[in-house]
């Protein structure tokens, strides 16, 4: 996509990250840097360590070695709630929504880190909390409008079709007005039309709000079209990094994908 954006300085840098589970190395010595306003993709075959990488960034996993620097704060271990407060929001590969709640309430939870009026006021729905609730509701309504999900505002998300659930999940992440948006296989399990919609939303988010996006994708085609830069992982190691064109012609990448092409059928 050739639209102009002001790609800024590095917002996230991952340095020499290694992660293992009980002796099994999930990631070894991974480094890369993501610039502000960029769409950055992490790709690789199944089991390459993509999700583990994402989980390190938002604090679900704590890498044994290496550091992650986000907006100038360097850390190795961070709690997920702390990462969220710093401005990292995410979606999940297997949709993780609050099924008992409505679309509206789900997206409202995305405002969690921005709410600070005391519980007493909230309980009374009065005074400062009332005003705060209205302000948050306004942000959420903009997200609903943006994602064109007005019709399901009051619907319990558990009853929605898959494609819409994905959209609500994206909405919840957007409601946090994040600086960095992590998308774990946003297009998994979608049909062609839904994929196109999702691509459009991702690009629009990046464009309208200037949000930096790091996304994981298993399917190379879609990602190459929407990403500014790509890093390729395989068996927990970094194979290549660069623009989609550079990566596409990289021999290691071609080998890795050819070698594991059967994974596509399983998925």
């Amino acid at each position, binding site marked *: 996509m050739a639209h102009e954006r002001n790609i800024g300085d590095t917002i996230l840098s991952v340095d020499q990250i290694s992660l293992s589970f009980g002796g099994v190395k999930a990631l070894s010595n991974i480094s890369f840097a993501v610039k502000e306003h960029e769409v950055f993709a992490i790709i690789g075959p199944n089991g390459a360590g993509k999700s583990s990488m994402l989980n390190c960034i*938002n*604090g*679900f996993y704590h890498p044994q070695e290496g550091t992650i620097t986000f907006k100038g704060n360097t850390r190795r271990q961070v*709690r*997920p*709630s702390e*990462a*969220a*407060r710093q401005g990292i*929001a*995410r979606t*999940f590969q297997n949709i*993780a*929504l*609050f*099924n*008992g*709640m409505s679309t509206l*309430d789900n997206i*409202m*939870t*995305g405002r*969690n*880190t921005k*709410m600070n009026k005391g*519980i007493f006021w*909230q*309980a009374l*729905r009065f005074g400062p909390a009332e005003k705060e609730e209205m302000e948050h509701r306004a942000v959420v309504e903009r997200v609903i409008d943006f994602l064109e999900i007005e019709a399901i505002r009051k619907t319990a998300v*558990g009853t929605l079709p898959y494609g819409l659930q994905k959209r609500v999940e994206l909405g*919840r*992440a957007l409601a*946090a007005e994040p600086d960095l948006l992590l998308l774990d296989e946003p297009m998994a399990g979608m049909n062609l039309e839904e994929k196109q919609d999702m691509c459009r939303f991702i690009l629009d988010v990046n464009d309208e709000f200037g949000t930096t996006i790091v996304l994981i994708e298993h399917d190379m085609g879609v990602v190459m079209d929407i990403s500014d830069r790509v890093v390729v992982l395989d068996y927990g190691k970094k194979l290549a990094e660069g623009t989609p064109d550079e990566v596409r012609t990289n021999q290691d990448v071609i080998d890795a994908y050819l070698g594991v092409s059967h994974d596509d059928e399983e998925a």
Partner: protein
Amino acid sequence: MLFLLETVISGLMAGVMYALVALGFVLIFKASGIFNFAQGVFALFAGLALYDFIATDGWFYELFGFALPVWLGIIATMGVMIIVAWLVEFLVLRHLVNQEPIILFMSTIGLAYFLEGLGDILFGSDVKPLDIGLPQGASDYLLDNFNLYVEKLEVVAAVVAAVLVVVLAIFFQKTRIGRALRAVADDHQAALSVGISLRTIWVIVWSVSGFVALVAGVMWGSKSGIQFSLSLIALKALPVLILGGFTSVPGAIIGGLIIGVGEKVAEVFAGPYVGGAIENWFAYVLALGFLLIRPQGLFGEKIIERV
């Protein structure tokens, strides 16, 4: 006729008590998916602590030479329950994140016995009459005008339970914390990703259920004194939950009332034919029947598996 009415009313009042305990279960179950076996012991523990703060034969009096006024005692007890909640999170739950529900359930059984033992060591095992100034005896008004015998305390208990339910409903549905609680109950990972701190939420939930336990402890204690059999009410709460549904606040109330009335009426009218003591097993048989017909309970969410 009048006798039946009296039986029903006394059943309703007993039901309110069951409901109070069941409510504590529901809260924790809703917010964390944990079946807290220790809820009954919580009520006992809260009652014991309160007694200790306000009586002249407890630790507190011994240490400081005076007893707290009732209202301050209640606040202090609430403080104790919050500390207990925090300790439970810090010492137990924190280390069991993402474990199977059955493991968490087992841990609450351990917790129950630990607290019971602790209460025994700290406060002794004798029955303690709790008097915090709630009205006692029969309502003269009803007795004089309708010839109806109703304990004042039971009326108070009913009112308190009603208020509690309204407050909890508002708390769950209308506040950010309530929304966060429901979020945590639905999906831990997703809740974490939006910046909800599991630890904070758990401390809050257990504190709230500690508060409910305190109310239950006070009511039962005022009625029949604080004694260790209180922890056994926890078992009565189980059929109540099966009837009402594990996730429903109104379910806990209605379930409690049905069991309360059911067992009293059965005892009085059917008891003589089967040799009595129906009260001891009626609730369980009723629950068993319910499990067969409507396993999610009266108000429970239908379990829908999406394919």
